Structure formats: structure tokens, C-alpha cells
């Protein structure tokens, strides 16, 4: 049977771990509020640009943009958004599982995959799994700047322009609520225009100032960038929420462990006392 000193030591070490996890839980809770605010602030822009893009898709443009063009797919690119830090439960792994499943599905259709990775965790994971990585953006922090993502997006869009890739998927966690995060794999390119509304006249086009090509290139690039940015800040909110839950569970589990160990400690202590007593009684009887 274990001796009291050992059990005491174990309890002390679990208690200090519990202190750390509960502190991390509180940090995550306060950061979660901030990241959620950032996520909500970014929404109006992404909604408005989506509106504009859907109008553009309805217009009979003189210049059909390559992002709308359906090519026979040979290669697809996955933009995977993950967190920079761990200790957030199954958040990243659940997403990676979906990405791998989708990639395997495409592989069966004879479509190769390559990856553009955002976040240290994705970079580490896809390095160990193996797979063609075309771009990485790491350490964006809690308040990512849209500028930090432009490079990565440009690499993907350039590859699409050159015909190196025919499809692009955006993989990230969607924020449902604090308890639930939903891993999503969405098709980015080719863009799928939404259903045409009946009420709008079908024969019209914009006046473009300056050229349609230049403008649409810029606008659609900005649209893709805004989608990626929105995915990153949403993923951030998910990370903090998941971290808070994970740390809360860890703190609760540590509490349970401590309770069990305290019971064991008392048992051990009592057994030791009983043994000592019986030894004394035995000794007295012998005399």
C-alpha cells in the first residue's frame, strides 16, 4: 500500500495543476468575449460584400470572371484555418479529420490536393501527415490583421490563375455557440452564384469604371480575402470558446482526482494508525 507521504505529494501536484487550468479557463473566458466582438464587427463587411457579389453574379457581365468558371478539376487547394496554440480540446483535430476525409474523397475522383495553412497547429499537422504545402501563415495573434492573410490568399489565387489548381476549399471552424463549434469545408472556387431571384430584371449590366476586368478582379479578390479573414477571426472565437470548455473540464477532473486521492490518503493514514496500535498492543501483551 502507498504511504501517506507519496499520496500527499500527488495531491499537492494535482492541486497546482488545477490552479493553472482554472487560471487558463478564466483567461480564455475573457479573451472569448473579445474575439467574439471582433467576429461580430467583421460581419457587416462580409455580408455587404456578399450582397454585392451576388448582384454581380446576376448581371450579364461582358467579362465572365475565371472564379466562376467550372474547369475539369485536376487539383484542389485546401485553405485550412487552425489555431496557433493547443489545449483547446478536439477543435483542430476534428477539422483536420474532415479535411483529410474530403481530400481522400477527391483523390478517388482523381483530383490531387495541396494545402495552404493558417495557424501553427495546421502547419505542424500537415507536415507530419505529408502533403503538398503551398503556403503557411502562422502566429497571427488574437487580433489578426487582414494584411497578414493577403500573401497566403494571393499564392492560392495566383495558382488558380495559372491553372495549377482548379478548385479551392476553405476549411475552418464555424462558431455556433460557446459549447458548439462546427468544422466546415466550403467550396471557395469556383464561386457558386446563388439562385436567381425572379423579381430582378435579368438583362442588365453595370457601368464599370474603369474596366470590367480590372474591377471584377479586384472585387472578387477582395471577396475571397474577406472570406478567409472572416474564417480566421471566427476560428479565433472558436478557439477561445473551446479552450475555455477544455480547461473547465480539466479543472473539474482535477477536482475529482483530488477527492479520490484524499479518500485514499485518509485510508492509508487510518491503516497506518491501526497497524501502529496493534503493534503497541501486541508488544504490551508480549511483555
Amino acid at each position: 500500500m502507498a504511504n501517506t507521504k507519496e499520496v500527499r505529494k500527488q495531491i499537492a501536484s494535482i492541486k497546482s495543476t488545477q490552479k493553472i487550468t482554472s487560471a487558463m479557463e478564466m483567461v480564455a473566458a475573457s479573451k472569448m468575449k473579445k474575439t467574439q466582438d471582433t467576429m461580430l464587427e467583421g460581419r457587416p463587411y462580409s455580408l455587404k460584400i456578399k450582397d454585392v457579389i451576388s448582384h454581380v453574379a446576376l448581371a450579364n457581365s461582358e467579362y465572365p470572371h475565371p472564379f466562376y468558371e467550372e474547369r475539369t478539376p485536376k487539383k484542389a487547394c485546401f485553405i485550412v484555418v487552425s489555431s496557433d496554440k493547443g489545449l483547446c480540446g478536439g477543435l483542430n483535430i476534428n477539422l483536420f479529420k474532415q479535411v483529410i476525409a474530403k481530400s481522400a474523397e477527391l483523390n478517388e475522383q482523381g483530383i490531387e490536393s495541396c494545402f495552404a495553412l493558417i495557424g501553427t497547429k495546421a502547419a505542424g499537422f500537415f507536415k507530419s501527415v505529408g502533403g503538398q504545402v503551398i503556403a503557411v501563415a502562422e502566429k497571427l495573434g488574437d487580433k489578426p490583421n487582414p494584411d497578414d492573410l493577403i500573401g497566403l490568399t494571393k499564392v492560392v489565387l495566383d495558382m488558380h490563375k495559372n491553372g495549377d489548381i482548379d478548385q479551392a476549399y476553405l476549411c475552418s471552424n464555424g462558431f455556433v455557440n460557446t459549447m458548439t463549434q462546427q468544422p466546415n469545408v466550403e467550396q471557395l472556387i469556383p464561386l457558386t452564384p446563388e439562385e436567381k431571384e425572379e423579381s430582378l430584371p435579368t438583362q442588365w449590366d453595370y457601368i464599370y469604371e474603369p474596366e470590367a476586368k480590372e474591377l471584377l478582379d479586384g472585387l472578387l479578390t477582395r471577396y475571397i480575402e474577406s472570406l478567409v479573414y472572416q474564417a480566421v477571426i471566427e476560428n479565433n472565437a472558436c478557439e477561445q470558446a473551446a479552450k475555455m470548455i477544455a480547461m473547465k473540464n480539466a479543472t473539474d477532473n482535477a477536482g475529482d482526482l483530488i477527492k479520490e486521492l484524499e479518500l485514499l490518503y485518509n485510508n492509508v493514514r487510518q491503516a497506518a494508525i491501526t497497524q501502529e496500535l496493534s503493534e503497541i498492543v501486541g508488544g504490551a501483551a508480549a511483555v
Partner: protein
Amino acid sequence: MSTIKINIVSSSEEIYSGEATMVYATGTLGELGIAPGHTPLLTGLAAGPVRVQNGSEEEAFFCSGGFLEVQPDLVTVLSDTAERAESLDESEAIKAKEAAEQELANKDASLDYAKASAQLAEAVARLKTIQKLRKNQ
């Protein structure tokens, strides 16, 4: 009086949303005036003011570039960064302009020429917005 819906958003926040009788903006090809019922238009925005007129009231915003979409009943400004004109500070703008000019003059250093001239253009546009606003008051 007929009005047109106007939304101004930047990537980090919603700046303005409301009705207007007239909207003025600085397009890449020059100044635009948009009245309700305007034909669909898509244009780039240059750094400069966006003014929203509703009857006799007028509000001004500074926009450092982006896109403008016009539908007959709706104007959407997708700005890279936008600020309410009241929050613009003239001394700050002048400082930014001087700094940009200095960087441009200092060509031999390993500086990004395109970036510096973009900064200069933005600072000048900021100043213009402020001055225009002053005149109207």
C-alpha cells in the same frame, strides 16, 4: 423627396447605414454624385471623402480606397478603411503627409517607393476631406 439606401462598411466595422437624397464619392476616375434611381454602377474608390446628404443634413466620411456599388435603390461602399470625418485630426494628417514626403525624398534608402507614395496620397486625401468639411461649415 425620394431617397436611396446607403451602407458604408469597412473590414473591421459598420460605419454608416441610412437613407440619403444624394451621395458624393471619389471614384478612381473622378468625383461621382449619385442620386436615387441611378443606373447600376461598379467602380473603385480612390482615397477621399464620401459625403452623404439627406435633405439639408450632410455627413462626411473619409475612405482610403475600396469599391462602390450602385443599384437603383441602394449604394454600398466597401471601404478598406473608413472613418467619420469628425474623428479626423488635421495636425495628424499634416504630420503623416510630411513623413510620407520625407520618405519619398529619401530615395536612396531601401524603402518601398510604391508604399510611400500610397501613404502620401492617403494623407493628402485626408487633408482634403478636412478642408472640404471646413468650407461647408
